[in-house]
Each structure stands twice: as C-alpha cells, then as structure tokens.
C-alpha cells in the first residue's frame, strides 16, 4: 500500500509540476539488489578520478605509460584491416586462433596437455575471469581464503557471490638487525594458514607474482598451499597476471603444475599485462574442463563474447612468443629485463629520500613504508580515512605525485593494522620515474 501511495504521489507530482519530480518517491521499495550492497566503493574509481583532477606524475594505477611492443600494435592493425569476420562475433568462449595458441603455449609451460575448447575460457581481462570464477563456484556462505595483501577486487567479488572472505596475512619476517627488505621476507605461517581451512572452505585465492607486494611464491610455499587444498578438497584460484615479470632470478611456479593440482586449479592470465596493452582487456582462465565449463556458463549469461579483433591480435602475439620462447627476442624476457632497471631505479630513489622500499621479486609494483615520515596532513576532507589514504591524497594534491594506499589491499578487519605503506607502480617511462624522483628529492630537501 505504501508503494501504491508513493507511486500515486509520484504521478501527482509529475502532473502537478513536471520539473519537480521527486525521484525518491518513484520507488518506495529498495531499488538495488542486495548482492551489490557494501561493494559500491572502489579505490580505482576514486583515485583514478583524483589523479585526473590534479596534474600529477602518476605512479598509481598499474598500467604502462610506454607503448606496447610494435609487433602487437601491428597485429591489432592487421586484425582491424582484416576481413569482415574480424568485426563480427567470434566463438563465445574464445576466438579459435587464440584458444588454440594459448593451449599450445601454456601446455608447454605447465607440462600438461591443455584442450583449447574444454580447458580455456577467454574473458574481458583477467578481472572478468576472476568474476566468472567466483560466480561459478562460490555459493551463499561458502568461505574463500584470501591471502593479504590482495588485489582489492577479490573481496567484493566474493561478497557479491554471497561468500565469506577469510583472511590470512603475509607477515614480514624480521631479519637480523633490520627490517624485511624484500617481498621474499613476507611469508605465510603454515599453521595459521592451515587453521583457516574448514568444511565450508570452497576456494583459496593466490596471486603470484603478488600485487601489491611483488612476492613470487616459491615452490615449497605453493606446496604447503597445495597440500591443504588436496587435504580439504578445495579449489585453488591462481591469479598469475604478472607471470612473466620476475626479477633477480626469482622463478614463477604455476601451482597447477604441482601434483594433484591441475584438476582443482583455475589459473588466470592477462593479455594486457603480458603485452603491455592493458586497455585491450583480453584475459583467460585455464583449468580442468569440468571446472572451466561452469565459468563458461557464467560467461555466456553475462557478456557472452569478447571483442574479436583484440583476441586475434593477442593470438598473433602468442604465436610469435611461442616461437621465440626462451630466446633474447622474446618479449616475455625483454619486458622483465627492462622493468628490472626501472625497479632498481625507483628503489634507489626511494631509499635516498628516506622512504624504505620493499624490493619486489616480481610484478609491477613496489611498496614503501611511510611511518618514518612526519607530515601535517591538514585536510579536513580526509579526516576519517586511514593514514595511508590521507597521505596519498595529500601527496597528490600538494606534491603532484600519485600513488596508491596499501590498506586498500587489506580486508576491512585488518586494514587498520596496515596503514603505513603506499604502493608505487614502476612500469613507467624513465622520464616519468625521473619526474617522480625530482618531486621526492625536492620534498626531502
């Protein structure tokens, strides 16, 4: 009755004065679905906007400011100028040339035959692969173990699927006489991890190399996780978008290649991160057919296809990389080599201005401890926010340097304990890194 009254009132308002329609009366009942409650805040939306509003040197969001390799740009141009079919729908679960080469390429990497049409789903970026995985496998009240710090979307995606995030942190192991200086020094406690598994645990999410920390999980660390997955019959969701970006001899290991893990792992990859073309939004999920088929069901009922031309270009890219794999011409070797220089450059710069970086073994990012900095964050608009958020906003507005607060990568429960780190992206032109260095030096003087 209230709704009918409200609707009638709305109609009367419309008739009475066409410009004063109070839309709040249009629907007296709740407009939005409950599944999106509590997931409306998004750090990327907020901080991308802020970085756009102020003129900043942007070491915030994780995308290169240099061009993708020319051969991949050419591949896209070639696809665009290809026949009609490049501009029309392709196969729903992945453009055939792309899934075929992914099967071939990753079959060789993982040491396990991969069926192009059963074991692979192409998605709109790795982001959508994550979404399909959670929606396909997580039910109301299922628990999903998430290792902190984590790429922020895992938590709201689990929530949207009705599941419950169970968090276990990487902790810096204190070294003799000093702080933990590399991402390798941040480890899981095996006992603590084991304690998080229970009969309601549906999945565990791992991210290696890790965003934001840059940790590259060693085989032994993955084995501990694998043992628990097998013991408790849990699915492993392995986000490996930065799989080619390892430094200083760190080796990327695919948990799906460990015994007993292929049939229970979804491995997620990214064309955007592999080819420095994040705007193409081509990603994939690879796993055993019986699991991937459920991701396909979500996909066919949500987006149905991904863009054809971009998939064709990524397929060409992988074809080239398949042939050049392990050789100096391989972009998958050249890119980490190039980024390693930038990583070292940024680390040196941060150290020299008193910001202690944690040197990442892999990935796009470096985090830095800001607790030693004494800054007057006199901004009433950020009064109630965590310290690192306030600091990052101050840095954007006052110094023109964009970074990301690391507490965004922690669960709501643990955020308050990790307010003293900020994240830098070093996958930038040297000129950008130089400009950042200038800002930091001026500030520390």
């Amino acid at each position, binding site marked *: 009755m209230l709704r009918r009254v409200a609707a009638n009132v709305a109609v009367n308002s419309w008739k009475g004065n066409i410009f004063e329609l109070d839309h709040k009366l249009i629907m007296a009942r709740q407009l939005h679905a409950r599944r999106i409650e509590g997931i409306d805040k998004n750090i990327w939306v907020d901080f991308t906007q802020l970085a756009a509003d102020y003129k900043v040197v942007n070491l915030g969001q994780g995308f290169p400011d240099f061009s993708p390799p020319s051969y991949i*740009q050419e591949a896209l141009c070639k696809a665009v100028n290809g026949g009609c079919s490049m501009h029309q729908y392709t196969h729903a679960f992945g453009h055939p040339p792309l899934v075929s080469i992914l099967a071939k390429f990753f079959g060789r990497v993982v040491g396990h035959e991969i069926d192009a049409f*059963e074991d692979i789903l192409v998605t709109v970026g790795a982001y959508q692969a994550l979404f399909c995985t959670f929606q396909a496998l997580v039910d109301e009240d299922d628990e999903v173990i998430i290792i902190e710090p984590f790429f922020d979307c895992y938590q709201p995606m689990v929530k949207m699927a009705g599941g419950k995030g169970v968090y276990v942190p990487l902790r810096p192991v204190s070294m003799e006489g000093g702080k933990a200086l590399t991402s390798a020094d941040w480890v899981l406690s095996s006992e603590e991890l084991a304690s998080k598994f229970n009969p309601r645990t549906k999945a565990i999410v791992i991210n290696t190399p890790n965003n934001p920390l840059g940790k590259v999980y060693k085989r032994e660390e993955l084995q501990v996780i694998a043992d628990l997955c097998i013991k408790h019959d849990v699915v492993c969701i392995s986000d490996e978008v930065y799989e080619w970006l390892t430094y200083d001899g760190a080796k990327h290991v695919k948990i799906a290649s460990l015994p007993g893990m292929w049939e229970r792992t979804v491995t997620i990859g990214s064309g955007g991160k592999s080819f420095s073309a994040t705007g193409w939004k081509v990603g994939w999920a690879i796993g055993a057919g019986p699991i991937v088929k459920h991701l396909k069901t979500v996909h066919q*009922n949500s987006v149905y296809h*991904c863009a054809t031309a971009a998939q064709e270009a990524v397929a060409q890219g992988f074809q080239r990389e398949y042939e050049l794999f392990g050789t100096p011409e391989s972009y998958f070797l050249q890119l980490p080599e190039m980024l390693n220089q930038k990583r070292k450059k940024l680390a040196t710069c941060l150290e020299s201005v008193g910001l202690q970086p944690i040197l990442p073994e892999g990935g796009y990012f470096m985090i830095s401890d800001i607790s030693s900095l004494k800054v007057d964050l006199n901004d009433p608009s950020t009064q109630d926010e965590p310290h690192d958020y306030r600091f990052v906003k101050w840095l954007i507005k006052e110094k023109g340097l964009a970074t990301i607060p690391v507490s965004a990568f922690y669960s709501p429960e643990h955020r308050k304990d990790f307010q003293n780190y900020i994240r830098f992206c070093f996958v930038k032109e040297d000129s950008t890194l130089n400009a950042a260095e200038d800002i930091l030096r001026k500030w520390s003087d």
Partner: protein
Amino acid sequence: MWLELERSRHTHFPLGIHIFLQLNIVGLFFSYMNITRRTLSSACRWININCIRNISYSQCAMTSSRHINSKRIEGLDKNVWVAFTSVAADPTIVNLGQGYPDIPPPAYVKEALANAAAVDKLNQYTRGFGHPSLVKALSQVYGKVYGHQIDPFKEILVTVGGYGSLFSTMQALVEVGDEVIIIEPFFDCYVPMVRMAGATPVLIPLRLRSNKETSSVSSADWVLDPEELASKFTSKTKAIIINTPNNPIGKIFTKGELQTISDLCIKHDTLCISDEVYEWLIYKGHQHIKIATLPGMWDRTITISSAGKTFSVTGWKLGWSIGPEHLIKHLQTVMQNTLYTCPTPLQEAVAQGLLRDYELMGQPECYFSSLAVELEGKRDRMAAILQDVGMSPIIPEGGYFMCVDVTPLNQDLPHMGDDEPYDYKFVKWMIKEKVRKNQQLDATSYLRFKWHTIPFIYLTFV
C-alpha cells in the same frame, strides 16, 4: 527454462493447427534456445561440428562433488548461440542463425579503430564506466534524441555489448524473489539472466490479431492484450523488459502500446528495461519511440543500446545503458565488480564514429539512416523471395530478422522423428537436406533469416 516456454507456447496459441504452426514457427526461435541436451547433441551432429564433446576424464582425476557449480547457474548452461557460433568456424556450413552482418562495417569506423590503436595511451586502461570521449559523444547523440541533457558521467554506463548492459541491469536491480515480466518472443538471454539473479520470469506473448489473413502479415499485427498484460503485474514485479524493435519478430512498439506499458509501470511502481539495440533499423512508415521519453518513465527506465548493431561491428562488443543517476549508479557498481572497464581503442573508435554521424543526423548520409535504407531493400527482396516460394513471412517493421510461416509448404516430415515440434523438425530437415554453401538453395530456407546475407542467398537462388 525450456519447460516453461514449451508450456507457454502450447497454451497461448490455441486457435487451430494453422495458427499453431505459424506461431510454432515463431516458437522455433524459442526452440533454438531451448534445445535439450539430447536434441542439441543431435543438432550438433547434423551441423557437423563436435560442439558437445564428451568431457574426457582421462587427463584429470575425477573432481569431487565439492567442485560443483554454484546454485545461481544451475540449469543455465545450455545456450544455443554457443552451439551456433561454432558453426561459423566450419566453412562448409552456412551460418544464418546468429544476428550479425556479413556486410563490412563503414570504412570510417574501421579507420577510427586503426588510428586509435596507434596511440600509445589508447592501448591502456581508461575510465571504468566509459571512456570519456565515448560517454561525451553518447551524451551528445542521445541528448538530441531524448530532447534533454544527459550527464555523460552519471547517466551513462558503457558495457560489453548490449548483452553486458542487460547483465549489469539485472544484477544491479533484480533481487532474489522478484518477478520480471518478459514479452514473448524474446531475445533468449533475458530468461537465464533473470534466473541467475534469483528472480522469476513471467511471460506474456504477443499474439497475432485474430482477424488477420496469414499472407501479408506484418510485425505490427502481433500485439499484446492489455488486460492480459495488466494481469501479469503483481506486488513482486520488479521490472518489465521490452525490446523494440523486437528480436525475432521485428515489431516496433507504437506510442499507444508503450503508453499502456508505462501506465502499468507507474501504477505498479516497476522498472522498465528497454532493449533498443536495433533502434536505428526502422523501416519506412515507422517510428522508434523511446519509452523513457514518456511522462514518468525517465526515472524508472534503463535504455540499452549497442555499438555493434549501430555500426555493424558486433565483434566489437560495446554497448551502453542510459538512465537516471539513481539507477545507473547501481549498474556502475556491478561494472566495477565484474570487469571494471571495456577496451579503450574500441571505445575511442565508436566515439569517433558517433561524432561523425551526430553531425549528419537527419541527413541521408548519416549511417543511422543509410543502414536502415540499405537493409530495407534486403528485407523486401527476401520477403518477395519467400512469398514466391509459398512461404508467409512476417514483414518486420524494424531490426535484423524475419520470421516465416512454412505451413503453406505442407512439408511432410515423418522421417525426422516423432517427438519434436514440427518447426524444429522442419529446420533440421532444411539444413540437413537442403543447405550447403555454394550449392543451389531450395525454396525451403531458413525459419528466421538474418537478411544481411540476402546477397548470398540471392546469388545461390539464381
């Protein structure tokens, strides 16, 4: 899903075998979507692709029962388009199932994409809810169409195709336990999307006006019964989905028809989801009306459109939702938690295309009008061909598709099996016996023609 539609199909079309079959032909469209695993397997055999493979367990140990799917996707795994796009990969098979053009997109749109791909920053992430130049271009074009300003950042969301907009809308606004009214015949994804959101689809059919001759039927002759429609609204009705121009029939809802729907939306306080992906494909003598422009409707309507259908680039998979901020913001929440952003160079290219056509709006050179003129010729040719060979097409007022009554052909199909609907057997027979690429097509052609391929069919008829 298939059982519900099967029941509705049989209960709503009682008026004799002729009409039953005619409507049954339309029902074949439902059959495409509602093929059971068994019939899909047999369909795939005669389509000559292995689209349902037996999952091989030799390579992996049997996964446990805990790896079963979540409840939300239970029963939603069948999708006939999945099977039919596989056909496109097989060069011996003519794919007339899915709705995409085989005419090339306009050159300026392809050029815009090539240009965008050459710009470094256009290969990286853009704004999540829509690339700024695209949402601004959309705001311009649709501001003109709607006759009021549309905020590019708060009232527009760019999505992965019209499909992605439908999904974002359902996930954002449809709650478990809600009812959503869907008008039959409907684009097949509406029902599984409603079910995935935990809601119940409530179906109501368009019906052929009872005094209509079966030759020279137009999609305008398929109408809703206002009383029947009113009876579908309950206290649980959260939304009604309309699709105008309609896929598959091609109906363009008149202002009066939309007014009836909007009166009910306002009376019952429901939302309206208006799928208008074919909005520019309007043939002579008809006018596309946006239900969101009717009084009281802007604030309760999400209008969905498609770059793929607008510019004949279905493989670009870009679409958009337009609506009031208090609804769009919820779709944006879904977007930021599902795929976050759409591809940048494609969005830039669509923006350039829109800006070019915005300048030409109302003129014959505008692609929004010129495509409709081109397709109208093809529509008329196809209709003539079908009529010549004794079939009765339903002449669409808009859109890509034409539905056809094949009963006049009186084709007896006892050898095609007993337990399937006639229309399904007919299409199966047609494909198996009559259609191969580059061979002379027999008179008995497809049920639902996507008549962008008219030149192809025409040639093989000669």
